[in-house]
């Protein structure tokens, strides 16, 4: 078997082995990279309030105890009654701070 050791000369077997190894490596690298490319998005819950008398409406972050149909406060424009008309989640692109990224990855 001494003749295999002197060979930096590439025989077909070594070539095939190297090619296969490279292919498998590339495959796994591609797999592990592909999984990481997902864009993280932040979800936030908002409450939409509308005035019952005029067209005024305002969106704020959801608070515990909010529900659609709940009366809350008065309109800053006409002193009419404000009512919660919708609660929904908005997905926002994560271009923001590091703390937001932590929330998204949870």
């Amino acid at each position, binding site marked *: 078997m001494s003749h*295999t050791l002197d060979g930096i000369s590439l025989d077909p077997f070594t070539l095939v082995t190297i090619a296969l190894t490279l292919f498998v490596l590339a495959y796994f690298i591609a797999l592990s990279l592909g999984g990481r490319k997902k864009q993280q998005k932040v979800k936030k819950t908002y409450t939409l309030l509308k005035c019952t008398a005029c067209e005024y409406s305002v969106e704020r972050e959801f608070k515990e105890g*909010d*529900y659609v*149909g*709940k009366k809350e406060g008065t309109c800053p424009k006409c002193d009419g009654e404000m009512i919660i008309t919708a609660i929904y989640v*908005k997905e926002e692109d994560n271009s923001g701070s590091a703390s937001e990224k932590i929330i998204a990855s949870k």
Partner: protein
Amino acid sequence: MSNGSDWTTTLFVILILGSYLLSFTDLPQRMQLWRYSSFIRKKIVQLTELEEDSKRKAVKYLMSLGVKEPKKVLEGFTNNFFLISPVDVEPTDIIKRLRHLLRSRDSKVRAYVMENLPGAGEVIWENTEVILEISSALTLINKIVKHYYKLGLKYNNWILMMQLALELQQIVGLAKSYDDAIDAFMRGIPIGDGAGPLVAHYLAGNSQPEELVKETVVYNIQIDGRKVYIIKAKGPGSTVGYPGEAVEKLVEKLGGRVSKIITVDAALKLESEETGEVAHGIGAAIGDPGPEKIAIERIATKYSIPLEAVVVKMSNEEAINAMTKQIYEGVIKALNVVKDIIENTVKESEAVIVAGIGNTVGIA
């Protein structure tokens, strides 16, 4: 260069031997079994984490309500309260029997929750029920996955293993959305399935509801001279009510003088469809196990009342999680479609019933 031809021979022999091994033994299948089972094991770890997380949340919620032994309450619920489907080879009466079983289960669950949370009130009881149900559903999903995994290993069933592995991505996604959904119910945020009740809520405006049947209310309003009866589950607790029974009772009360019944519901979208798309058609848009839907169909048939359906499309995950902005926009569209149907196809002074079907959590 004699060693070169030596290696060519060896390579040739290896290739031949290799192809024999791959073609005439079940070695490839064994390798696949091994690969798929290791993939499944990883996913089972994920499922178990989700199950534990849901349990933690449920325990935390129960603790915040002042339950002394929240773990025991949760354990007492999980695995119990199953429902055995009625005999279907003899379908006579099956709806009555199914209805009876469902109602019995509902009242048993309610009794269990009330026993552990005396005096908490309807909204809390309803939300607690759903949180317990979700947590026990996650336990069940995990158990079923483990069951097939163990069967596959036991009998070297590589096809079963492969099927399970291929399905798991979707199953884990669903489990994750179940776990997320608990947050919505804990905080009382409307979910995607609340699209129907939200349309009903908007249509009703600020008129006063009247409880028609258990956990289900009716509003009576006028739109351009048309009498509009709006049915929805009683909010803002997490319940779907009994809309079928309510429609039946209301139609009978009106002596069948109803010119149209419109059901509004969330519908599962196809992958190529957009969330929040609105469509309308014929039939009862309601996804209960059967009794409520058939009640609407039967009463409509009895008095030959046209049955129309308006749906807001969304995915399974979106239906059980906090309502997204797209679904909210769909709700506004659906509301306009319902108004159009009433204005264009119902004559003045005639009566029409609009039933907003779905879970009314977070919607009064």
